[in-house]
């Protein structure tokens, strides 16, 4: 699944993250985490941080996944203004017009701050910000 994820990221976002391969580990059936190489052999119940999940249309990125990998993305990144960024962090979907993005996973950012990912269905970006991370 790690090779699939690296290949998907290149296809979807135009960025090469293959040099980070040694940090990726598969967790369960669908999740990818980033772990320092030294930590892989250490016993524990949770290792490193969750960065991506396999979904029917490819992968979705967690907020931290977008923050770590977002800088490698060359396309399908949606930059929001401050007002819309706050709406996004409240967990609402974002209508999208005038952005050159393809259907599928998009990375969301405000200025230099990456704010997770969503699914662009051609009209709006469905919000994947988890409930506990949303602004009230």
């Amino acid at each position, binding site marked *: 699944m790690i090779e699939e994820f690296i290949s998907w990221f290149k296809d979807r976002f135009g960025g090469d993250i293959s040099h980070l391969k040694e*940090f990726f580990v598969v967790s369960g059936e669908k999740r990818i985490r980033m772990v*320092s190489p*030294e*930590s892989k052999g250490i*016993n524990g*119940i*949770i290792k490193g941080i*969750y960065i991506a999940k396999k979904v029917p249309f490819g992968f979705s990125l967690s907020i*931290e996944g977008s*923050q770590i990998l977002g800088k490698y993305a060359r396309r399908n990144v949606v930059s929001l203004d401050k007002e819309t960024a706050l709406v996004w962090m409240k967990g609402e979907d974002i209508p999208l017009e005038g952005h050159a993005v393809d259907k599928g996973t998009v990375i969301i950012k405000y200025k230099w701050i990456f704010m997770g990912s969503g699914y662009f269905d051609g009209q709006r970006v469905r919000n994947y910000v988890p409930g506990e991370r949303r602004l009230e």
Partner: protein
Amino acid sequence: MAPPVVLNPRPGELILDLAAAPGSKTTQMSEMMEWRGTIVANDVSPSRINALSSNIQRMGCMNVVINRADGRRIHRIYGEIFDRVLLDAPCSSIGQVRRSWEALKRWNQNLVERISVLQRDLAIAAYKALKPGGLMVYSTCTFDPEENELVVQSLVNRGAEVVKFDIPGLKTREGLVEWEGVKLDDSLAYTRRIYPHLNDTEGFYIALLRKVPI
């Protein structure tokens, strides 16, 4: 926070944070290590593990491995493998009175005596998990000697060396070397008491120890 500064974990090292939740010191150490090496962040409480996990994720600490175990058994799980160990021990929290009046309401001598037994057992397990030559910080947010110097004395009795240290920019007082007529090891003066009035902070206690190779 001061205990991680005193422990000074380095990139690439193997660190144990024995009573880690909710993880503020764990995340501080992770950044000090530039997200390299490993921190085993242990706690015993499932609900506190949830808070720890959330903070590790939010702060992007990819060099942290979370473990759930009774800290008193930690050396049996991992052996003597850690370069450095932080034990920020559960305590009677009297140093937090400025922030929370509840700490004073909860405080009584029975609590101190009961929790000092747990602290000593945790400290011994933490010390055993160190590599020979490894460094350990024992810290609390309380002032009772039973929870501080007497716990450290129990490690000195097992061969630990108390290491002198300074915390730049922080006024401190020496640890006690005598309590209720009992003489403690002179090296306990190298441990540090940080009283609230000294720096306009909460109060706490920090000791730095080295595991002497046999």
